[in-house]
């Protein structure tokens, strides 16, 4: 039952990714919190969502580019992490999310090809046919997101129950490993902003504020 709920949440969030609204409830931070609430562990959902938000900080749904699908990836990651209780649950969940984000991205590309067949040719289109095709494509996107999440959560849950107990690192080392990966994303974003040389004053000022905030808040 919970797997079905997770899959439906994945389907709904996938719709927000491109088809409907883009209110960014599909971003990992929000998707993680929602998925955590569904699996009964909102704190875990938030941690996994925050980590994937950092990883996907530089992943945008621009134009026709293929991009990792953050929504289904995060829902799968939270579901996987919730299926085990060792220190390896979160790293395995994040790894599953990173893999499933790529799978989700491939299915988005496939769906866009299918949409091309749905949509009527411009020279023969009629309003009713156009509206029906458009709504059908959105329904298909929901089904795609639901199916991607269902398969990912089921396979990931099985995998994590098999592997999580053999995770040899403790909590701090596991966090360190995941933050090193996240640091690459942060560095890439700094480059997008113009790089360290151009942005060093603001970056260092922000770091000072962050250090002070973390110490005194």
């Amino acid at each position: 039952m919970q797997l079905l709920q997770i899959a439906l949440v994945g389907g709904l969030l996938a719709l927000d990714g491109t088809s409907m609204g883009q209110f960014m409830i599909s971003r990992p931070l929000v998707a993680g919190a929602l998925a955590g609430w569904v699996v009964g562990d909102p704190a875990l959902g938030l941690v996994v969502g925050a980590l994937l938000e950092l990883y996907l900080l530089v992943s945008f749904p621009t134009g026709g580019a293929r991009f990792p699908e953050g929504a289904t990836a995060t829902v799968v990651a939270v579901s996987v992490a919730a299926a085990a209780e060792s220190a390896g649950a979160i790293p395995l969940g994040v790894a599953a999310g990173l893999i499933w984000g790529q799978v989700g991205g491939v299915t988005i590309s496939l769906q866009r090809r299918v949409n091309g067949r749905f949509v009527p040719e411009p020279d023969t289109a009629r309003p009713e046919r156009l509206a029906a095709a458009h709504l059908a494509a959105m329904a298909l996107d929901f089904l795609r997101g639901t199916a991607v999440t269902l398969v990912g959560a089921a396979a990931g849950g099985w995998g994590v129950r098999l592997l999580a107990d053999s995770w040899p690192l403790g909590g701090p080392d596991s966090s360190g490993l995941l933050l090193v990966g996240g640091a690459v994303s942060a560095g890439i974003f700094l480059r997008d902003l113009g790089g360290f040389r151009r942005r060093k004053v603001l970056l260092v000022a922000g770091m000072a504020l962050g250090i002070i905030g973390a110490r005194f808040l």
Partner: protein
Amino acid sequence: MAILSRRALASAFARSFLIQGSWNYRTMLGSGFAFAMLPALRLIFKGDPAGLNASVQRHLEHFNAHPYLSSVALGAAVRLEAEGASADSVRRFKMAVRGPLGGLGDALVWASWLPAVSLSALSLVWLGAPGWVAVLVFLAIYNLGHLALRAWGFQAGLSEGRGVAQSLGRAALSRWTERVRSLATLLLGLLVGAVLSAEGGLGDAGVLWSALAALAFVAGDLVGHRLWRPTAVAVVAIVAVITTWGWFE
């Protein structure tokens, strides 16, 4: 010029939120654009089914732009159709604006506004704010900008029609992009500082992980986007190796 009801305009604007619903590699946003135009076109071509069909067909042609800023083109196209502009001039207008609306939107929203708001929410998490506060702050701030941009774009397009490029110029979106990017830099620094010092952060993980994270950050800054996929693969591979290692211990 045909009179457009508030209801038809509101319906077209509401449909602009679904403009990517049938995104495809053939017409890209074209089908979504025509779908969003329908309520207005039905009113403009009331009693003229042939005119309605022809209009739907020209809006269904290839079009692409940033989804939020496509509301600019949508508003302007509604106005042009209501004024009875020729098919060619509507087509030329859409071809002229699609590039700038894509470029400006990608730079302002995807590459600046979204990551800046993400960074502010992540900083809140690391500085110890309750998770639901960070999530609500993210959604509220992001969508304030998102909805304002869509509404402004539709209104500007509708009121200026073909001359909407001047509105875009006056709005100085590029200057706004630069401001948001400066804010994003500050927030990125804030997050880095918080992750280094906060409880459960790199400080607690030890010197080795902090040094590796610093190297990873510098590598990201030097190499850029080419490093994203290898990083994801590396994280997955390392997690797999560590797990397998523990299996045989």
